[in-house]
């Protein structure tokens, strides 16, 4: 067992501590004018010169789609990639709830400042004030932009936009399009992007996956990508590279992410020098449909709004296998209502998730494997009538019935928490530029705006803010203020990256072992879920950190990948992504181990209040943890966070 | 297809109503047949109107058939490989018989013209004796049978054609959906039944 110094302040055998870093791009001074001043100080590229510059955008979700469309429209040459068959498929499409904006159309006291305040507080004081304020400012422009694009937001009979409240805030600032807001916003961005593709301003490469980053003279100058249909490996060069490749939730194998979502692009960039910040901030959503068996490949989220009328309970008796209607009222434990009488079933996501886990760990879980709790609408049906419940939740009930085959009007739903968003990501400065000059990171792929916990309906806001409004001027500033030499495909840096990528794929195919790629992914996911999921302990994390390298070693010895690399080979794609998850998972656990406090989506059981609430340690941990790749123990660089506007306070929901 | 179909549909409606005059007796029917050849007189000369109508109908039939041919070719090209598991056919019988039904109707029209217009195949074959010509043809059971099959095909063709045309011409909307469907059924039944009444009546001896 390696010896460790006191956690948080020093290092350990798992990591070392390097110099502190700072976000030097953000202006200081009054927070209201920082973004304006940054835009004003940014250098501009003459419109006539823009076409001489090429930008690579990887990913076509809200952030990537919006960025590609906007950069192309401004005149840059854009080369864009997505691994799906069409840019319209990116996983932003699955977001249900809505998008926040400080429009104050309800006259209910909302403002840019309040959205800023809610987001900093909701992020448990682990986000930068400058970034969050800018996000709140831009939020209103996003709605204008999307309405003009034809996004069919819900409207009132007056013809004006409808809004609702969401995720524990007290104002109605969430714009929505039934339960398909992400889809509608993404289609808007996709249409804008399609227009630029048709105009020849964007060279679109669907079914093409970025496998590595090309860094020349310390600057990001291109990527190496694989055509997933022909298997051809091709280098693409540019003046700047934008990663919009989403989060790493699939390190857990089972999550609400799309099956293809992966961390390869960000992890490869990290290996080439980009700092990775706060990977331990993962968000777990309490109302997902539990897994039904070993074969399960994916979890499905149901809107949190269900908790408004449903009551959550488990049998009081351990291992009770009676069907729910056979369990009398007196033998049920409505544990959220019991423990948190003020908020009851509406406690924040992380608290609801953890409470469910504790019940199941204790042997009171229901359904297959005892991994589920009841979400019961019997009282709501009695109170409002079945028709009213149908009107309010009909879509969700139908989805539940489709997946489980059970009728939630008659039998209580079973729910269990699942990973669905990751707040951590590549470290970026105020300009969204990573620690590799010329490499920009937008959307869920970066770490910038949500701190340790993201509020509901804020992911869509951030993706579009980054893509439409923040990235384009900042990318222009980089190009205008940097003297970029020409690079050629013969550059040794290019050929060596191609060699590495090809070599790795070749090795994966050569092993010809006796385990499938998925079996490793599943095992890694279970390990991380158990030890670095909803509740984390030092002992558990150390266990995971001991096991992951073994698993990785076993992977490279025993994985079996059929076929060859010169064809459409989905097993090879998978194996290559899993290889990166097997490296990333270790950093995730190291970050969780080092942060010996609880905050937002990171709950260390050692650090809780007597009531079992997350207990922050602002004295030691009010910083963003940015990790540097070394090949061995990573180096921690701390970016201290300063709170000039929102005062540090402990959350309290009991 | 929609426009030419609509033209022919209108003609069929008038044609069918005219046929029913046979129930008023020989004189009335022959008079009607004669009148058809002199519509518009004296403004128009002799059978000008008739020829004009024949021209319009010929153009409509030719265009209808040409588009049907082109559409079929394009559609077969767009789906070159069939499913090995037969598809569920949600579409009604009428939809699935548009192509074959169309061919049956085309063959019927040729026979029909030779029978009652050119009189080449008519057993009576007396110019101007429309009533007797009709009776002589339909007294033969297989002529009547062919006629009835063709009319059934026609009914089905109209049933899908009417409503399909409504959609092609953009007059179809959610609000009108039900009415259009009823309209299609009523027209199809009316026209097919209206035409079939005559030969059945002849065969049954009600008209002789």
């Amino acid at each position, binding site marked *: 067992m390696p010896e460790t110094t006191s956690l948080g302040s020093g290092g350990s055998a798992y990591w070392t501590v390097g110099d502190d870093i700072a976000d030097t791009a953000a202006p200081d001074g009054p927070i209201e004018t920082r973004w304006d001043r940054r835009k004003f100080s940014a250098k501009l590229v003459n419109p006539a010169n823009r076409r001489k510059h090429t930008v690579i955008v990887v990913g076509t979700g809200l952030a990537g789609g919006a960025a590609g469309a906007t950069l192309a429209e401004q005149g840059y040459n854009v080369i864009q990639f997505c691994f799906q068959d069409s840019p319209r498929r990116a996983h932003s499409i699955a977001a249900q709830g809505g998008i926040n904006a400080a429009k104050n159309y309800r006259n209910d006291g909302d403002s840019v400042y309040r959205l800023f305040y809610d987001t900093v507080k909701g992020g448990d004081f682990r986000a930068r004030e400058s970034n969050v304020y800018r996000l709140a400012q831009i939020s209103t422009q996003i709605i204008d932009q999307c309405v003009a694009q034809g996004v069919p937001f819900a409207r009132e009979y007056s013809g004006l936009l409808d809004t609702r409240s969401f995720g524990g805030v007290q104002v109605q600032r969430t714009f929505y399009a039934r339960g398909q807001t992400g889809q509608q916003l993404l289609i808007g961005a996709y249409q*804008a992007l399609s227009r630029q593709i048709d105009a020849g301003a964007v060279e679109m490469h669907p079914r093409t996956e970025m496998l590595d980053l090309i860094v020349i003279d310390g600057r990001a100058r291109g990527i190496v990508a694989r055509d997933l249909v022909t298997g051809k490996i091709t280098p693409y060069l540019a003046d700047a590279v934008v990663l919009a490749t989403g989060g790493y939730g699939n390190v857990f194998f089972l999550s609400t992410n799309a099956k293809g979502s992966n961390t390869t692009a960000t992890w490869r960039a990290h290996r080439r020098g980009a700092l990775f910040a706060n990977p331990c901030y993962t968000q777990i959503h309490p109302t997902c449909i539990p897994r039904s068996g070993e074969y399960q490949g994916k979890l499905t989220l149901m809107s949190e709004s269900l908790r408004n009328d449903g009551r959550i309970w488990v049998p009081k008796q351990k291992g009770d296998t009676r069907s729910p209607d056979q369990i009398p009222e007196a033998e049920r434990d409505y544990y959220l209502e019991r423990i948190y009488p003020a908020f009851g079933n509406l406690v924040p996501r992380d608290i609801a998730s953890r409470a469910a886990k504790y019940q199941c760990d204790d042997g009171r879980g229901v359904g297959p494997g005892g991994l589920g709790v009841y979400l019961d609408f019997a009282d709501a049906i009695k109170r409002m009538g079945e028709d009213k419940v149908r009107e309010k939740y009909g879509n969700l009930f139908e989805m539940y019935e489709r997946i489980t085959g059970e009728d939630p009007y008659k039998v209580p739903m079973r729910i269990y928490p699942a990973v669905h968003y990751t707040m951590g990501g590549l470290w970026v400065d105020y300009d969204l530029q990573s620690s590799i000059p010329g490499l920009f990171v937008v959307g869920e792929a970066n770490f910038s705006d949500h701190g340790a916990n993201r509020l509901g309906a804020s992911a869509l806001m951030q993706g579009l803010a980054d893509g439409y*409004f923040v990235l384009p001027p900042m990318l222009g500033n980089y190009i205008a203020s940097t003297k970029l030499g020409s690079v050629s495909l013969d550059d040794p840096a290019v050929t060596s990256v191609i060699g590495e990528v090809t070599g790795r794929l070749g090795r994966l195919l050569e092993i010809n072992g006796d385990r499938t790629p998925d079996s490793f992914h599943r095992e890694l996911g279970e390990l991380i879920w158990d030890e670095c999921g909803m509740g984390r302990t030092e002992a558990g994390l150390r266990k995971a950190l001991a096991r992951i390298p073994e698993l990785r070693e076993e992977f490279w010895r025993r994985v079996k990948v059929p076929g060859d690399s010169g064809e459409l080979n989905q097993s090879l794609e998978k194996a290559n992504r899993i290889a990166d998850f097997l490296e990333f998972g270790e950093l995730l656990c190291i970050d969780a181990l080092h942060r010996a406090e609880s905050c937002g989506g990171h709950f260390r059981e050692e650090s809780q209040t007597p009531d079992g609430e997350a207990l922050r340690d602002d004295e030691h941990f009010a910083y963003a943890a940015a990790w540097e790749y070394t090949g061995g123990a990573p180096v921690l660089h701390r970016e201290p966070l300063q709170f000039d506007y929102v005062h540090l306070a402990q959350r309290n929901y009991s | 297809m929609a426009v030419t179909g609509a033209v022919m549909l209108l003609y069929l409606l008038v044609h069918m109503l005219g046929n029913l005059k046979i129930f008023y007796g020989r004189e009335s029917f022959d008079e009607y047949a004669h009148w058809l050849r002199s519509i518009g007189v004296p403004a128009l000369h002799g059978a000008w109107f008739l020829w004009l109508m024949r021209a319009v109908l010929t153009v409509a039939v030719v265009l209808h058939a040409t588009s049907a041919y082109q559409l079929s070719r394009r559609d077969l090209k767009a789906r070159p490989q069939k499913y090995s598991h037969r598809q569920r056919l949600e579409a009604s019988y009428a939809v699935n018989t548009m192509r074959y039904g169309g061919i049956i109707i085309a063959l019927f029209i040729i026979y029909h013209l030779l029978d009652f217009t050119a009189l080449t195949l008519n057993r009576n074959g007396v110019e101007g004796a429309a009533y007797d010509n009709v009776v002589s043809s339909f007294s033969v059971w297989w002529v009547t049978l062919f006629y009835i099959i063709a009319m059934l095909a026609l009914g089905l063709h109209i049933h899908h054609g009417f409503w399909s045309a409504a959609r092609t011409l953009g007059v179809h909307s959610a609000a009108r959906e039900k009415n259009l469907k009823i309209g299609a059924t009523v027209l199809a039944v009316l026209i097919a039944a209206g035409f079939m009444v005559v030969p059945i009546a002849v065969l049954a001896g009600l008209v002789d």
Partner: protein
Amino acid sequence: MNLTLRIWRQRGPEDRGAMVTYELADVSPDMSFLEMLDVLNERLILEGEDPVAFDHDCREGICGMCGMVINGQAHGPRDRTTTCQLHMREFADGDVIDVEPWRAAAFPVMRDLVVDRSGFDRIIGSGGYISVVTGSAPEAHSTPVPKPIADAAFDNATCIGCGACVAACPNGSAMLFTSAKVTHLNLLPQGAPERESRVRDMVAQMDEEGFGGCTNTGECTVACPKGIPLTSIGNLNREYLRALTKR
């Protein structure tokens, strides 16, 4: 339950392809159709065979990536359901299930059940958008949109671009897909300035891609997992005729 699967296997676009039979035991009725294929693929890998290639991503019925013709029906027997949301409880022990790719000249097979649907992207690129320069949009409330119009636009905007309509259409026609986008954008006041060019260009692109013509069979709307109605096709025709007269 135990199943017999007959799956279309085709190594590449140039290969002929054939139905291949697999026996699969111990299928749980709670599995989704794709999870069932996952299980088959895990077995095939260990047996040293190439797993069945199929497109899929979100597995919650919204990305539109998955799609196969199951027993002659696009996305299988359950109405308004994508393949990923179809569960094995729709089938019975001992069933023989035929699985084939979308078949249409405009959707060539790339491998096994994977087809190329890029024609859809080009149809959208030809006019399925509202041109708005980022940052130039007026205040969102400057143009109210009556709720029924907004709702109807939304209903059409729910299209996920999966291609089931084309797969189900005996003519391989893309009318339902194109009409959904035309209807969504042309209904809205924001879409009005480009109303005529949009429908003209999209129809022209649709024809160029080699999709068949619409004969109003209605198969598309039954296969559509999002229930895009046939009236959208009527609307497309109306918009098209209107655009022709305004040329």
